[in-house]
């Protein structure tokens, strides 16, 4: 009888196709985002996230069509991130059927973008994606761009505080130290960020075992994002939720 902890699969797309590491058994076309979205929706995903890694403007317009086709058939919330630089980009995505957008680099380059999006569409539409790693900043965590390849010298906690005061509905906290390791979410960072923000926190990066999911919740996460463990069917969304339920966390089964 309480708010469920969310489990969110994340798909990388470019030019309207799923790219990077999807290996679904029994799926004829693993590159079809609509088919995958439907599968995840039926498997009990609480939301879906598409990360648009398109390189060109033309490819992004194809992604818009893909968002539209997905929203046509999948009736759970859809977040789209990647390449959002102005309010117009948000408007187009929402019109195509996205429910939320996530911003990252563009907001770091021009923080006012957060105010502009929140003022027009409300805080709840905006997920601030923070790619953080351990570094020589005040909090010990540094904001990075380009998937963790470029450091900014910015303190991650100061950035989260600034962005939240401008109007952010949620924080997607990606650990660049844990990402791709499958060694578990960065629970230390999750616990520290939970202390400094009052908006929901989505943990991302490092999920490899069922215990990792409950550990992230114990550290204070409200939602759990994962990619490869679902794409490669290491375990199903139901298995994750059953594990969480067993550990006393409320989930939507």
């Amino acid at each position, binding site marked *: 009888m309480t708010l469920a902890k969310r489990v969110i699969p994340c798909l990388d797309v470019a030019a309207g196709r799923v790219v990077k590491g999807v290996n679904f058994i029994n799926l004829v076309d693993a590159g079809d985002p609509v088919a995958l979205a439907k599968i995840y929706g039926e498997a009990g995903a609480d939301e879906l996230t598409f990360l648009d890694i398109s390189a060109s403007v033309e490819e992004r317009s194809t992604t818009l069509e893909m968002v539209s086709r997905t929203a*046509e058939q999948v*009736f759970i*919330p859809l977040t789209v991130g990647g390449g959002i630089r102005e309010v117009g980009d948000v408007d187009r995505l*929402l019109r195509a*059927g996205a429910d939320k957008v996530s911003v990252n680099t563009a907001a770091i380059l021009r923080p006012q973008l957060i105010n502009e999006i929140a003022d027009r569409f409300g805080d709840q539409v905006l997920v601030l994606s923070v790619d953080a790693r351990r570094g020589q900043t005040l909090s010990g965590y540094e904001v990075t761009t380009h998937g963790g390849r470029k450091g900014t010298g910015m303190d991650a906690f100061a950035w989260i505080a600034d962005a939240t005061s401008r109007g952010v509905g949620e924080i997607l906290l990606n650990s660049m130290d844990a990402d791709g390791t499958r060694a578990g979410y960065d629970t230390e960072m999750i616990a520290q960020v939970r202390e400094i923000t009052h908006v929901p926190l989505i943990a991302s990066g490092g999920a490899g075992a069922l215990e990792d999911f409950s550990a992230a919740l114990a550290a204070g996460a409200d939602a759990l994002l994962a990619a490869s463990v679902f794409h490669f069917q290491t375990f199903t969304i139901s298995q994750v939720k059953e594990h969480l339920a067993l550990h006393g966390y409320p989930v939507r089964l």
Partner: protein
Amino acid sequence: MIAILDYGSGNLRSAQRAFALTGHETIVTSDPEICLASDGLVVPGVGAYGACMEQLIAAGGRDVILKRVAAGGPLLGICVGMQILFTAGSEKGPHSGVGIFTGEVSEIAAPILPHIGWNNVRASEESTLFRGLKDERFYFVHSYAAKEGVAEAINSYCNYGEDFLAAVERGPVSTVQFHPEKSGAVGARLISNWAETL
């Protein structure tokens, strides 16, 4: 025909697609005559209370809602589309609502806001909207809500930090704080329950 009121707020296509899924044709419109003549009027809403009210008034939607309710025409308010039917809202300063329901929409007392995700609704036994949907989870995204039950209405509640109204049904007016159009199969069932009363 079901009309979805277009006043520049809300994910109109989501609502339209969810109705289509349940076999109900809809028209997205701001035309007062079509809205008033429709079998059912859906009032969506996303964003801040004051901004939604401003847009609603500018689009003539406030008058449409008042006329429609006075004439006993069925109406379904979703999310901020529910909130604006109350007397007032306190999001980013005080704002007057349409005033169909007496009561104020205020911030939820919870440590983590917005309230985002799937939460249980304690549906009233008398509810038509929740027929076959007792104690299901629906998808919420909001920080503000009405807390006090509406007089002479069927009130259903949700809890997040405190109890607040998840749905109110009174005569031709039905409202939900969550997003049925984003609540998967249970949301589709709720939409069907409403559409079947028209």
